[in-house]
């Protein structure tokens, strides 16, 4: 039996899907602060959308509350600007209902890891095919500058004038620990690489979590400078590339080597080690992904950027579809009379 929803979900798109980035602009003013990292993320999303070959009506952006969560208003596709922390819960229901849709979540470190933390870890574990773009600025901005679950110890904010006491979440580790099948990190100032990550996320059949270091010019300006500025990033970050050794430094003169399970920085110029000794990244190795993610707050290690993990695992919504197909496909299945009248029924004549 086909429903009114099937009629729309299975309808053929009329005309072409050859879009330009402009086709994804909603035509309303973007209201982020001048210099906000959000502008770059929005531009890169709009740039990759035409490359996906997905009809616009099949795309929806769901968000919670926070600066990043204004995102759906700026995209000319379907969208819901929902409740603080709840975007993933809403999108999970939508994806289970409508696996035909391409679903994107714009969220922040507070929205995703604090008030929405429970939904985040459970969506990761279920492997719902959602693309979660987490704008991490390590601060609550829309409420005007309180510390967030990714703020650093000692960080001075309006609600921590004497310094933050909490240990921060490491978002990549949290995602991996919760079972996310695709986990990556990028930053707002590298448009090409963000486009690459967004395309990878879109094409990944499963939950894709992309943490984006996003500069908040007002409440946490320069928080990621060390890892993002041209003059410092080569020495303080390392790019993860599948199948390639981990090399970094201004002169590509340093590498990461595994000592047992412990990654260490080695010099490639002192004659002790060569490229062959270095750790080679493998996106399908989930043990390695943990090791790399755990380098994040280690002060003597470069900050890892890129795709930590990309593994294929059956999505939750696919399992729902399979279960339904199995049970509704049995002979005599789906007859409402059998639901209404059971073995205990009787007839009064």
């Amino acid at each position, binding site marked *: 039996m086909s429903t009114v*929803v099937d009629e729309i979900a299975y309808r053929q798109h009329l005309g072409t899907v050859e879009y330009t980035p402009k086709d994804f602009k909603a035509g309303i003013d973007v209201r982020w602060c001048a210099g906000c990292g959000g502008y770059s993320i929005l531009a890169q999303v709009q740039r990759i959308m035409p490359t996906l070959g997905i009809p616009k009506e*099949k795309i929806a952006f769901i968000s919670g509350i926070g600066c990043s969560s204004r995102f759906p*208003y700026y995209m000319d596709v379907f*969208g819901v600007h929902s409740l603080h922390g709840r975007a993933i819960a809403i999108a999970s229901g*939508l994806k289970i*209902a409508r696996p035909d849709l391409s679903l994107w979540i714009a969220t922040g470190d507070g929205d995703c890891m604090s008030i929405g933390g429970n939904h985040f870890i459970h969506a990761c574990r279920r492997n719902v095919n959602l693309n979660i773009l987490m704008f991490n600025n390590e601060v609550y901005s829309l409420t005007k500058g309180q510390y967030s679950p990714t703020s650093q110890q000692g960080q001075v904010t309006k609600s921590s004038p004497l310094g933050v006491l909490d240990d921060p979440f490491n978002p990549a580790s949290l995602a991996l620990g919760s079972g996310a099948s695709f986990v990556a990190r990028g930053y707002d100032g590298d448009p090409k690489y963000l486009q690459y990550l967004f395309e990878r996320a879109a094409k990944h059949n499963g939950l894709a979590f992309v943490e984006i270091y996003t500069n908040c010019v007002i409440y946490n300006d320069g928080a990621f400078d060390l890892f993002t500025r041209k003059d410092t990033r080569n020495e303080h970050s390392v790019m993860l590339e599948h199948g390639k050794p981990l090399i970094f430094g201004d002169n590509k003169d340093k590498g990461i080597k595994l000592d047992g399970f412990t990654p260490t920085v080695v010099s490639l110029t002192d004659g002790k080690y060569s490229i062959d000794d270095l750790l080679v990244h493998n996106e399908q190795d989930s043990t390695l992904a943990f090791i790399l993610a755990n380098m994040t707050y280690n002060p003597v290690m470069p900050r890892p950027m890129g795709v930590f993990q990309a593994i294929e695992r059956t999505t939750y919504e696919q399992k*729902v579809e399979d279960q*339904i197909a199995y049970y509704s496909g049995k002979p005599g299945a789906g007859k409402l009379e059998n*639901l209404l009248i059971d073995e205990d029924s009787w*007839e009064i004549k």
Partner: protein
Amino acid sequence: MEKQVQYLEEAVIRFAGDSGDGMQLVGTLFSNTSGSIGNDVNTFPDYPSEIRAPEGTLYGVSAYQIQFGQKRVNTPGNKIDLLVAMNASSLKVNLPHVKKGGLIIVNSAGFDEKNLKLARYEKNPLEDNSLSDYQIVPINISSLVKEELKESQISPKYVDRTKNIFALGMTYWLYDRPLNHTEKWLEGKFRKKADILASNKQVLKAGWEFANKSEVFKTQFKIKRSDMEPGFYRNITGNNAAAIGLVVAAHKANMPLFLGSYPITPATEILHFISGYKEFKVKHLQAEDEIAGVCSAIGASYGGYLAATTTSGPGLSLKVEAIGLAVILELPLVIIDVQRGGPSTGLPTKPEQSDLLMAMYGRHGEAPLPIVAATSASDCFDMTIEAARIAIKYMTPVILLTDGYIAQGTNPWKIPNLDELPDLQPKFVTNPEGFAPYKRDPQTLARLWAIPGTQGLEHRIGGLEKEDITGLVSQDPANHQKMVNIRAKKIDGIANDISLAVVEGEQQGDLLILGWGGTYGAIKDAFDKLRSDGKKVSYCHLKHLNPFPKNLGHVLKSFSRVLIPELNTGQLKTLIRSTFLIDPIGLNKVQGLPLKAYEVEDKVNELLKEKE
């Protein structure tokens, strides 16, 4: 021996035993058999909140009460005519509910030293004359089944477990019920276990024969069939009826169904049922928490599904923010709240009607939504359909209030003819011409609904106040006032689309009883009794709590006094007082127990006496 036959209008029986004694099963079988021979039936299971309470203890007692009769039976009954007690604890716990002079069959094997100690009896009550107010019949059921099955190959442990079936057989003789309905059920249940099937059938028959031959049972009771409408029936719990109601509502709406839910007593069975309906292409998510339960349902609704979430009080507390979102998004959503005693964890397994004001007002901001309530187990089906109808037609979340009493009790449900149920199909917009997400149907004020996947209708909605018609974010003061008014007017307007309040008895006069939801049966019994005693009292029962039926003001003003019995401290009374500026009299009970007919009767008699 010559047996007497006595005809009864109705009877109340209760099976009571240890949690593992199978009392719920024989209660269900007895009520199904009674339904199948044309009696009206109303049941209530009474079991401990502990999962496996220690054997033989007072708090491990599980019971199942059934009222069955020739006339309409509205409640599981008050005082018990026959108690079957399998051990000392079950006798002690249930004795206060037995009528003076009532019949008590006890399994004397359940009164050994250990059992008496667990039941905190100092002396054996079967021997100390303390039960002289009752007709007490001690039978060693344990040894009778042992004797009966001495040839059988099944294990001694299993032999002992057939005690309940033996007791059931005795009650079938006592109330002249046939064995075939139960035999058929056993055949289905033990299709693959021939020896167990044979033993159960043999023991059922033996119970019946024992009562027939025994000299202690001198009278057989007969209850004529009631004049129920022809058709198919089944005994159904409120939770089962609600689950089936959701599937049928989706079918009538030609929409797929989604349930987002989190386990909570006493609503969980709805999730259990729905999760087994995969053959009907029903989707569900057992969410990580109550909030995700409702939020996933909102997501599915946004995708064009008939979406529902099921919960009980504490869960509703957690869902209220999301329900407010559904109010401003103007998306259909069915929220079933199986009320239990509160506040906080309160009385998880006990009924109360104390969520009415939360349903009405429990959201920040001006966030009105329709509220409906079910009157009985089987009415949970009708009211689920009604909630879905209103939700889809008016693009709004709807709260259906049931309670732990009707959710787990049963009464016969006349299986409906699906063709006679209303068509609930939504009108999805597919034409981009002139579309705006907050354009409205001038009649219902429901906004236009365009679901993802509809080419050319891409649009954004959200929790920020939106501009009239366009749905764009708007902070404009006049627009906010306008939108608040529109949302309220849309809900108020539903009053034109629901049944009028019906008054039983005189249409005007001195005293009106006004009830709502799950107390219907008790109030109706009281009302019928009062009327047959010649008392001048009228009765009106509400199933629509917001908006109220549009004639309700007129109804209330046609009486000098209005009595509102409810299982809370006066929540409907508060609503009625503030809406209609009258001062009703409350009959308020908050004991975690259902309302009893005699309580209403006594209150009405007291009020009538005041006037004399």
